């Protein structure tokens, strides 16, 4: 593990207005370059809040975050240039075509002209969407939308990419395409921070995971090492259920 983390989180706390409980409760964590880091947890555990703070959408109540050496409170503009976001929602415009959506988001990252169009063509082909590029997003299947949602976060070649449940509710084929691509870009040096409810997926994909519950990190490490250290649970899902309990969450 390299010594210098690409993301450093210290005592990060977020308390929403009107709430007495902290959504994120003083977590500290280092994420290193070229990791695929999984943030796992039940609904309302604090995963999306943590990612929203890391990408500058939310302000932390307390704590410190540095990304690639930049403090998020003072250097957010620089941080925004090197991170990519793939939100949980299909954050696309349904009445624009796939190509128009990607062109617009590419423009927002300062990409224009030939460079942008070559990138869009490349990604559309890579994700099997080239034949559908000029159809409006509203006419895409769930899996196709997820793939465009992912491409929109990759167009500017980010150093770090945040993915909030990128494979939720899609067909197996689309899931395989997405996960394979994530592994490929990770091999090229992109650090990936990823949240999911799919434990098996996280176990296979992630180099390290943090299990979060009620705003606290309750387990941290390589998923296979976590399973090895707790042989009675056999897999990550059992460890997860053991740590977070079996009662359902809202």
């Amino acid at each position, binding site marked *: 593990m390299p010594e210098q983390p690409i993301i450093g989180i210290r005592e990060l706390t977020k308390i*929403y207005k009107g709430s007495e409980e902290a959504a994120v409760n003083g977590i500290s964590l280092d994420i290193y370059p070229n990791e695929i880091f999984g943030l796992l947890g039940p609904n309302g555990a604090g995963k999306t809040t943590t990612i929203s703070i890391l990408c*500058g959408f*939310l302000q932390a109540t307390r704590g410190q975050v540095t990304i690639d050496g930049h403090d998020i409170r003072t250097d957010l503009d620089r941080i925004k240039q090197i991170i990519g976001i793939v939100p949980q929602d299909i954050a696309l415009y*349904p*009445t624009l075509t796939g190509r128009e959506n990607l062109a617009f988001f590419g423009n927002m990252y*300062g990409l224009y002209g030939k460079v942008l169009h070559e990138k869009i063509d490349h990604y559309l082909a890579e994700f099997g969407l080239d034949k559908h590029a000029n159809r409006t997003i509203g006419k895409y299947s769930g899996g196709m939308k997820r793939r465009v949602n992912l491409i929109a976060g990759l167009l500017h070649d980010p150093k770090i990419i945040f993915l909030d449940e990128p494979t939720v509710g899609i067909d197996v084929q689309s899931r395989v395409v997405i996960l394979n691509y994530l592994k490929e870009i990770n091999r090229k040096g992109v650090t990936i921070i990823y949240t999911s409810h799919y434990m098996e997926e996280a176990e296979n994909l992630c180099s390290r995971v943090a299990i979060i519950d009620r705003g606290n990190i309750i387990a941290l490490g390589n998923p296979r090492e976590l399973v090895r250290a707790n042989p009675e649970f056999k897999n990550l899902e059992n460890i997860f259920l053991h740590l977070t309990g079996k009662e359902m969450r809202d």
Partner: protein
Amino acid sequence: MKTYLSVCRKEMLLLVRDKAGLAMLFIMPVVLVVISSLMQESGWGELSKDPTVPLLFVNNDHDTLGTQILNGFMQSGSFEVIDSLDGKPLSDSSAREAVRKGAYTIAVVIPKGATSTLLANVRLAVAKTLAGFGMGDAALLQSLTLRDSVNVTIYFDPAVKRTFKNAVVGSVRENYYKFQGEWVFRSFNREMARQMPLYQPPKEFFSEALRFREEYPSYREVEVIPNSTQHNVPAWTIFAMFFIVIPLTQSLIQEREGGSLFRLLTMPVSYMTLLMGKVGVYLVVCLIQTVAMLAAGIWLLPLVGLPKLVLGNDLAAMLAMTLVVAMAAVGYGMMIGTISRTHQQAAAFGSISIIILAAMGGLWVPIYLMPSFMRSVSAISPLNWAIKGYYDIFLRGGGLAQIAPQVIKLLLFFISSVAVTAIYHSVKKPMNN
């Protein structure tokens, strides 16, 4: 700049693909202006060639006074005088019944002997006056007695407006006094001639001494007659411009709820750039709306028999006015869209507030018809500032100097809306609550 243009392009594409939204922005106002102008035209008195208000007239007098009042109604051009129904001459009771049933709104009944009563009373008044000068005719005075007043009955439907009632009563009264004046004058002359053989009565009658000259004072030498077109085209143009609050707030909230705003705010682009992109596009929409409405006023309204819109003669003033009205409308939409949490909230508050501001601002009912309290309240509506500005241009031949107060108020409204939007966003980011 490139980022800003990209935001504008995206907004334009979203707008162009929303067919229902486009219909609401461009077709609805044109339809509204045509319907409202047609409905209000008789109220503005421009369709005088084509009487529109039927009036039942029962002439039991069958003499000069009844005929004079009848002619007065017919010559006014505002009434279609009806004296028989189903082939039968109207009577007091049948006219009353027709109004009671709601088939007609007004009936005028001239009583029997109205002329002879009036003439007898005039003759008595003249005789008494001359007696005061020692010129009395004792035998004549003895033969005359004062008769009861002439009672003209007018039946009104309860829905008839007071102003209209006044017009009908005024018309009867005017013809009655005209007739009475004529007869007083004639009686005097006749009596004077009878008692003073050398007396030469004047040949001209004094009733023509008073004439009216109507004029609409304007800033320049423009001949613009107020009519429903001159009122409705600017009024509905302003309404349409402010109604972009609906698509604009929908666009803002859709972006927020769909997650696109989340993605955009994590990109190297500011919220104000995103907002200003919308402002740019919706300003263009407002300008196109204005052109469409003016074109409808000039070419479409005359096709349905309405007066043609007469533009003022200061294009710069009209451009300036349109631009600041558009800015005020877009600023208001931006503010509502940012403050509202849901589509429903924005749609309900946005549309109702525009309707209230329009009603308050005198877009539907002229301000001079409002009670004094409402007249002072209307001064706080930006739609009132807008209509005042357009009236200055369209009706009074005003230019930039005359519309300056309204332009300044609308600009300040835009600046305040943007400031509230920016402050609200910085204090209360979408997920920071």
